[in-house]
């Protein structure tokens, strides 16, 4: 039996791969992470879309906001590894005594900084959502292309597919159903549960895999040009314009459209 309840847990080092979630917004947790190597992105979610508010690198601290806010300890933002990272994890107990002993004035200053960061993050997210409506020029161009090409033959289908953001790890798989497809792009529906881990926004590049015939796997890469919420069942539709396709896959698609 150990009775070392007050013993401060040791500092540990953890390794994260590109795309891994380090902190999830809304979760409980007060550990603080110091980035030893690699880059970490900070994301704030609002209205179903994730907005990146910061990119942090070696020597910088992640997760200090829940510690400083103290009371609930829920995470206000998510942190995701943008590349393979080593992080040092500090249990809050390591810092808590020192933080309590700090002069009031320093603690108040830290509290004010936190309050303003939360306020500014909210403003950044609101502004970026507003601007999201005006697509960036490249996405707009793709959208026009998509509309043009889709005037060509569009085949109505019901094909199971899996997809993921093009820059995410392969393990991430979102299931959807391709509803129609043309040489220019396709439309996928996903039930709401499909988007537990990731919610696309226009401009995101997705990697989609499906089978046209029972044994003919086809991969397609494209950019999301629009997103629409379906009826009461919470289904989400997304339109995608192809940006990249292997010549063989393109040929398969061509044949598939003709048959």
């Amino acid at each position, binding site marked *: 039996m150990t009775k070392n309840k007050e013993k401060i847990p040791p500092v540990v080092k953890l390794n994260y791969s590109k795309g891994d979630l380090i902190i999830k917004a809304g979760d409980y947790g007060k550990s*603080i992470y*110091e980035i030893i190597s690699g880059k970490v992105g900070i994301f704030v979610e609002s209205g179903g879309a994730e907005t990146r*508010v*910061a990119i942090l690198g070696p020597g*910088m*601290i992640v997760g*200090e*906001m829940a*510690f*400083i806010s103290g009371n609930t300890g829920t995470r206000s933002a998510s942190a995701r590894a943008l590349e393979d990272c080593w992080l040092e994890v*500090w249990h809050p107990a*390591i*810092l808590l005594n*020192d*933080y309590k002993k*700090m*002069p*009031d*004035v*320093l603690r*108040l*200053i*830290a509290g*004010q*900084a*936190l309050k*303003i*960061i939360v*306020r*500014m*993050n909210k*403003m*950044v997210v609101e*502004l*970026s959502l*507003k*601007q999201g409506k005006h697509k960036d020029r490249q996405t707009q161009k793709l959208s026009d292309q998509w509309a043009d090409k889709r005037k060509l033959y569009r085949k109505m289908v019901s094909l199971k597919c899996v997809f993921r953001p093009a820059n995410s790890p392969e393990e991430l798989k979102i299931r959807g159903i391709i509803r129609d497809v043309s040489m220019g792009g396709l439309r996928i529906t996903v039930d709401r549960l499909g988007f537990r881990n990731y919610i696309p926004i226009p401009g995101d590049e997705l990697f989609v895999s499906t089978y046209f015939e029972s044994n003919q796997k086809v991969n397609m890469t494209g950019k999301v040009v629009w997103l629409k919420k379906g009826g009461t069942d919470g289904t989400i539709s997304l339109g995608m314009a192809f940006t990249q396709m292997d010549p063989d896959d393109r040929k398969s698609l061509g044949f598939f459209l003709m048959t």
Partner: protein
Amino acid sequence: MTVNSQVLMYIVSEESFSDKAVIIKEGSIGDWVYVILEGRVKIKKQTSGGLLTVDTLSEGDFVGEMAMLKQGNSTRTVSAVADGPVVLGLLDSVRLAQEWEAQPTRIKKVISNLIQNLEEVTKKAADMIIASK
């Protein structure tokens, strides 16, 4: 918000500013810290589209704390401008600096990082405001 009694004990002098007076100028050097005793202060940032208000602080809030707590130089990264008549309390910078320096490394790292985040999100917010105009 009222001014915390602990903070009042750090005040070495009171300074009054009239409406639109520049209290801190972005790009200048300095690490003294004020607390707002009366009135409001606008925080402004220089952008490609001109000087932009990114936040407004009121009684009990600190002004100028970023330059003191960040690592490295003490260049001001925002301007502070009086929004109507303002009374500020100047805090004892020697005492503050000594107390800050005496903090354990990890605590200093966490707070410096917080200030750096504040600096970055302020810049980002200013850029976004300009882009949305």
